[in-house]
């Protein structure tokens, strides 16, 4: 074109050139799968019944990832069938599937592209339910595309850096830890024996003890019956629950949640109305749990006895992680040892112990990461 006869020598600084980085465009990759409409509709159906929108979306992405991974496996020429990956499993928040005897945990990342992802606690369980591989999938929900990005071998989880478990027993790992290319995952699945992958003893080096208070001084529950917190419990910022109140719908106060749990327990474990107890604040340790302690006295036998009931439940809107364990013991032996299993309907753990006024009890909560929460011993001394 002809130039203007008027010479203008202005530089337009505002029109800076577009840098290549401005195009955050994801090119189609060889391991990208475009889902057919039926797969998408299945994912929509699967997440439909979930009431909590945050959880619903997560399950939707998981379901898409699952469909994408299945298609990706099927697109190759090797026969690698994925175990039954039904709707119910997903609704229960399960992300681990079997392929050729390997347990694969599918980790779905959405459009954001973070530099780290969180591995679900259940996939790191200490039992032999741990995942052999975590498979990272990018789900582009808008365009029904799933890309298999890479995977992480269970014996390599700590290779990049030592990891610390999150409060619920999950681990957050950098994306860079996923060092196995998709094609290499196929190699492992078709050529390796699952038994040859080192068990996750490597997975939990960060287990540690958390003490919600010094363990040398006991907690005197006898004072609770007089509506008082003993000095120890008070120093631990435990709060005495208000009288038990009937449950209402929606968000519940700790006291209401406790009432609801006790109503469920009622047939097998009657709790007298005179029971009293505080709840320690575990959230200040970053744990989304509540521990309820209840005590009452028993005079049926010749020697008066006291009862301690501990209930471990989640804070509102959360769930107890699978693998969490509640233990109660006296000086000699473990009296209560309960672990929340993956397939359990239960949403909380509880244990009751009964002893004479001289006896004392210890309580321990073990997180799926192996970390333990040890409380000072509980003793009973009603004298002021």
């Amino acid at each position, binding site marked *: *074109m*002809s*130039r*203007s006869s*008027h010479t*203008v*020598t*202005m*530089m*337009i600084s*505002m*029109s*800076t*050139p*577009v840098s*290549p*980085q*401005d*195009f955050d*465009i*994801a*090119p*189609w*990759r*060889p391991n990208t799968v475009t889902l057919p409409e039926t797969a*998408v*509709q299945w994912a*929509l159906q699967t*997440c439909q019944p979930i009431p909590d*929108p*945050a959880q*619903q979306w997560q399950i*939707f*992405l998981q379901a898409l990832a699952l469909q994408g991974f299945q298609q990706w496996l099927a697109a*190759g*020429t*090797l026969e690698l069938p994925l175990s039954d990956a039904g709707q119910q499993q997903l609704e229960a928040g399960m992300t681990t599937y079997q392929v050729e005897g390997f347990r694969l945990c599918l980790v779905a990342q*959405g*459009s*954001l*592209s*973070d*530099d780290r992802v969180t591995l679900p606690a259940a996939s790191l369980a200490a039992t032999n339910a741990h995942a052999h591989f975590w498979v*990272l999938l990018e789900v*582009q*929900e*808008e*365009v029904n595309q799933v890309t298999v*990005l890479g995977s992480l071998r269970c014996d390599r989880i700590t290779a990049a850096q030592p990891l610390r478990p999150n409060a619920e027993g999950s681990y957050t790992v950098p994306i*860079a830890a996923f*060092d196995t*290319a998709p*094609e290499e995952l*196929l*190699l*492992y699945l*078709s*050529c*390796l024996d699952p038994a*040859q992958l080192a068990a996750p003893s490597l997975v939990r080096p960060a287990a540690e003890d958390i003490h919600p208070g010094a363990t040398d001084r006991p907690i005197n529950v006898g004072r609770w019956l007089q509506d008082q917190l003993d000095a120890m419990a008070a120093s631990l910022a435990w709060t005495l629950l208000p009288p038990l109140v009937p449950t209402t719908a929606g968000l519940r106060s700790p006291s209401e949640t406790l009432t609801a749990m006790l109503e469920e327990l009622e047939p097998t474990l009657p709790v007298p109305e005179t029971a009293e107890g505080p709840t320690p604040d575990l959230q200040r340790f970053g744990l989304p749990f509540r521990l309820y302690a209840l005590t009452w006295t028993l005079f049926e036998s010749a020697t008066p006895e006291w009862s301690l009931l501990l209930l471990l439940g989640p804070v509102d809107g959360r769930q107890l992680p699978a693998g969490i364990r509640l233990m109660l013991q006296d000086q000699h032996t473990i009296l209560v040892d309960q672990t929340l299993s993956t397939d359990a309907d239960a949403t909380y753990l509880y244990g009751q112990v009964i002893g004479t006024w001289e006896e004392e009890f210890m309580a321990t909560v073990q997180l799926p990461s192996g970390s333990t929460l040890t409380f000072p011993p509980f003793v009973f001394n009603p004298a002021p």
Partner: protein
Amino acid sequence: MDTASQYWHLIRLTGAGDGHSHMVPQVKTWLQPWLADDIKDAETTLQQRLITIWQANHGQADLAQLSLRCFISHQIRDVCLQLAQRFGPTHGFSARDLFPLVLDDDGQLQPNHRPFTLEILDTYDPTQANLGAWARRLTQHHRDLNQALLEQGLYRASDWAILNDTSVKQLQRILQDYHHCSDHEISRASRLLQQYHQVYRRDRIRNRQGSANTRCQPPSREQLQRIEPAMAPRSLLHRLKTLASQLRAYRIHVRSGHPIPYSDAAVDWTQVADPRQSCPNDDDQAAFLAAYRQALEQDLDAAIADSITTAITQLRQRRPPKDDPYVEGLYLFHCQGMAMGQLAPRLGLSGQVQVNRLLQLKRLRAEVRHRLIPSLCQTVYQAAQPYVSAAQLQQLNQTLEQLLTQEVDQLLDEARSEAQIPKDRTAQSLFARRLCHVIHRFLSSPETALE
């Protein structure tokens, strides 16, 4: 062209589909007196004056608007050119394919339809960004443009998809660590995202059922009202977009750092040492290699044939069937050494991405390898014993990868191949040589077979 003249030159679509610079005399004449002024920082002043006149909406608002549309049209063209430059060669499109989607301003003072340039101008808020950046951003978000890119295998997540897929926890971390926001800003943003999720995610899941349109649309007025009834919809929309762009900035940062977990880049074979020399347990490795070479040829033929047969069975079920182009593509690529880009027209495909998608060479090689290893392990059981731990399997895998990939890579890059041939020439061409041997039984078209 100097940048000031962008204010009186409009980029218009020609009949041939090009974006041509077209002088608008009335705007030029109108601007002339200002340009004679010797003003420092004239560029910002000029743009600001034009915006002020246009927004005042009287007198010469029309001319100011047209001048700004001229400026915007240049930004639109730049985005198209850069997209084509960056992705066009591999994804099979040129800027001419993009221009018709976004260049729709005919330069009328009072246009009959609302051109894209005007849409950009109407949504522009001078307090938030500069006009050039805003125009480029909206062009990159243009729906039809994104659709066209998607058809070429390029996906750009919408703001709404990014907001959907970000948890409040992630948002807090990103705002704190990456954007260094204050606690107040973070809690405000968290609340906003939470409210957005409550409304938009649920609606999205509901609306997607039975609907074919999958792209996330901007929240409707009604949705905005439900997200935050106390705020004017326009400013709420703006806040959400700002939030999305903060997340996008982080996303770009992450992707440019280590975009995907493992590197997909081609291996530079000059940097890969001979496995027999680099391996710590030399003797084991050498013994193993000797044992498997004997079995290699026959097992490799079988593995290649099995893989191709299975692929053909799957591709035959596509509509239209893709098995013939697949076999022909493999033949032309491996046996004729034809480049990927040249293959597309021969196979009736639109571009290199489609060829990649069809041939899946990387996966074919991987799967041949995976079929090969168990049979080789069986044949040379004794020698393979030390290699079956996870770590050593990976090492073995790399050895095979190297042997099998060398010839393929060589064909890909004839010029570089001379410098890259490692010492071991006998094993080098094995994969391609055996593939070419095997593929003849699958070729259906006699003329290709004769080539």
